[in-house]
């Protein structure tokens, strides 16, 4: 018993000292929908968390919970985080929207940042990347590189984010290669290496020699490397999975945003906002161009990227018709964000129907 008492006294002393030694570190929490080792979506968010630690050092203390199912489990994990003194929580999947708002209502002094959602509150911000800008650059490269004029596209779910990506990639590919066709496979998953590999094989059998994807694993990249065709990295660079196959990649770069939001909390200037940044702000990154790409294409892709960053070019500039031939954007007209955020139609030229 004596030993226990002594230990307890020691613990109290230690706590007292820690308390006296200056300001408490800001606790920052993250919940991820996948494993941090998915090398895609969740992995990139975790890099953002590590960037916070590297940037702020002792001023912050980060924690995360991975593979949290959307729904009541997310609500519980968020509650556990909030009550343990975490003051800023990043909820990094669309399905965390309602759980985030529910928990935010119970903990008004905790700040929440919800990725890809559209519901906000006084202590809930939303943020997302204009990844369609990246897909414009990738589509441009794909249109140049395909020899069969068939580009395979592994799509996840028919939500606006994914439909927008297909449309922007198609428009860019079509602009440089009028004969180009898109074959689209809906995998109905964000992360399932097995299904993604099946989809890639099915697309290759249908003649695709360039594969784009909106799912998170490098499975398709590995297959493309084996079959000697091309693919693009998704969410993370994925160069190591296909040194010859990987033409370029879309990289979700959350680091600058995460650092700025932590800084805002530390400064006491945090307010609820809605952020939708693209290549210009560095949230959407384009991976290094592969040596297999001809120099002329590299140059035109780099210019396209710069123009998108500066705003000189917009991914959706008219004239563009919808798939059924009805006009959407007149010549020179630029799509408004509202339509883009709710995009539920293919543009003219894409074959097949959106799953309903």
């Amino acid at each position, binding site marked *: 018993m004596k030993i226990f008492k002594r230990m307890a006294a020691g613990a109290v002393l230690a706590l007292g000292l820690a308390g006296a030694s200056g300001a408490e570190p800001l606790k920052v*929490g993250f919940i991820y929908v996948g*494993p*941090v080792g998915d090398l895609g979506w969740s992995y990139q968010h975790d890099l953002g968390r590590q960037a916070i630690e590297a940037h702020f050092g002792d001023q912050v203390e980060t*924690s*995360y*919970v*991975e*593979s*949290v*199912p*959307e*729904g*009541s*489990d997310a*609500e*519980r*994990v968020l*509650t*556990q*985080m909030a*009550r*343990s003194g975490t003051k800023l929580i990043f909820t990094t999947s*669309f*399905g965390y929207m*309602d759980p985030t708002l529910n928990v935010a209502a119970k903990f008004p002094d905790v700040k929440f940042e919800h990725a890809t959602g*559209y519901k906000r509150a006084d202590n809930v911000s939303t943020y997302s990347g204009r990844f369609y800008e990246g897909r414009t650059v990738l589509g441009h490269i794909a249109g140049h590189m395909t020899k069969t004029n068939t580009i395979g596209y592994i799509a996840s*779910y*028919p*939500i*606006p984010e994914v439909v927008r990506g297909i449309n922007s990639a198609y428009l860019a590919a079509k602009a440089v290669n009028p004969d180009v066709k898109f074959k689209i496979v809906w995998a*109905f998953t964000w992360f399932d290496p097995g299904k993604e590999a099946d989809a890639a094989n099915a697309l290759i059998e249908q003649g695709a020699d360039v594969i784009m994807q909106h799912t998170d694993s490098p499975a398709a990249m590995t297959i493309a490397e084996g079959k000697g065709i091309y693919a693009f990295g998704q969410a993370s660079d994925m160069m190591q999975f296909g040194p010859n196959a990987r033409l370029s990649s879309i990289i979700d770069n959350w680091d600058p945003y995460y650092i700025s939001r932590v800084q805002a909390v530390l400064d006491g200037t945090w307010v609820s906002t809605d952020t939708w940044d693209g290549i210009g702000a560095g949230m959407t990154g384009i991976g290094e161009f592969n040596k297999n790409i001809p120099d002329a294409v590299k140059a035109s892709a780099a210019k396209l990227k710069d123009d998108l960053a500066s705003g000189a070019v917009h991914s959706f500039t008219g004239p563009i018709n919808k798939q059924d031939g009805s006009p959407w954007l007149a010549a020179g007209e630029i799509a408004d964000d509202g339509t883009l*955020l*709710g*995009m*539920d139609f293919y543009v003219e030229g894409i074959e097949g129907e959106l*799953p*309903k």
Partner: protein
Amino acid sequence: MFRLEARPQASKTWIVLTPILAVVATMFAGGLLFAALGKDPVASIQLIFWDPLFGEFAAMDRVDILKKAGPLILIALGLSIGFRAGIWNIGAEGQYIMGAICGAAVGLAFYPMEATFIFPLMVIAGALGGWAWAMIPAFLKNRFGTNEILVSLMLVYVAEHFLSQMSLGLLKNPEGRGFPGSRNLQQYASASNPELFPGTGMHWGVIAALVAVIAAYILMNRHLTGFQVRVTGESPRAAAFAGIIPRRIVVFCLGTSGALAGLAGLFEVSGPAGQISIDFNQGYGFTAIIVAFLGRLNPFGILLAGLLMGLTYIGGNLAEQAAGLPAAAIQAFQGMLLFFLLAFDLLSNYRIRRVRRRVVPQVTEPTASQETA
């Protein structure tokens, strides 16, 4: 030298002792695993098993344990009846999904009308949805002799596909800006399944689970149907002589487990989950198989096993967040629990005997030697 000897009857003592031993062994092996990951094993185990029950925020965690255990218990009870009869319904996950979809669809059909009859109607639809889904393997087994393990399991994938179709199509929230998922039932009073007493976690699903525990106990121990189920499982030939019709048992067992799984789905979608979405199902139907065996297929055992499983989930999340343990380590930890249970299970059906080994005397040797080991 040791030898395993079959017991004439399973040992009552060991049946009770093995789950406890399994938990202790899991704590020990789990501690080693956590230590190998560079975490403090005692603190990690404490986070998983102690803090959710007696820690600083135990009041909140206990509520979550109940919420998590409710559907597990409800599904496991249904499964255990079938398992006792040797009918292996592995597809409770699919029946859970179908129950949720049917129940939610009924509720959403009435939106935005408020009326007291809506929720009871949803409960019936949920049970029917799960029941109907389980009738497919039952029918195929009775009519064509198919294996219910395979059919019920494969139907899980069909149900998952149906779930994404519903979230993207028919049940999609018209005000959801094109995103998949239904309206949130928590925000529709007549169709929601809230906590009956705020802060206790007791929603209709938890109450249904508790009622089902007692009902299952009476059924299996005091009712003729339960007797028939047990006889069918223990001795199919004796059952045939007793005039028990195996097809009826198949329909009864799959139907009951399907209906209970469907109910669990309905209570979950209208309560804690709130909406039909692509990722609505979280594997309760599969985890319930572990719960059923952990609870020795006994209704009260299942109640305890469900609570224990709920505890490892809640504590597991705590340990992930507070101790930085990877999710995979927690899953491995839960897997160990079943592994040790099955391993120690040997002791209830077998006893370990120390035996003497004899070497048969060889013909060429004039003097036979005997040795003992």
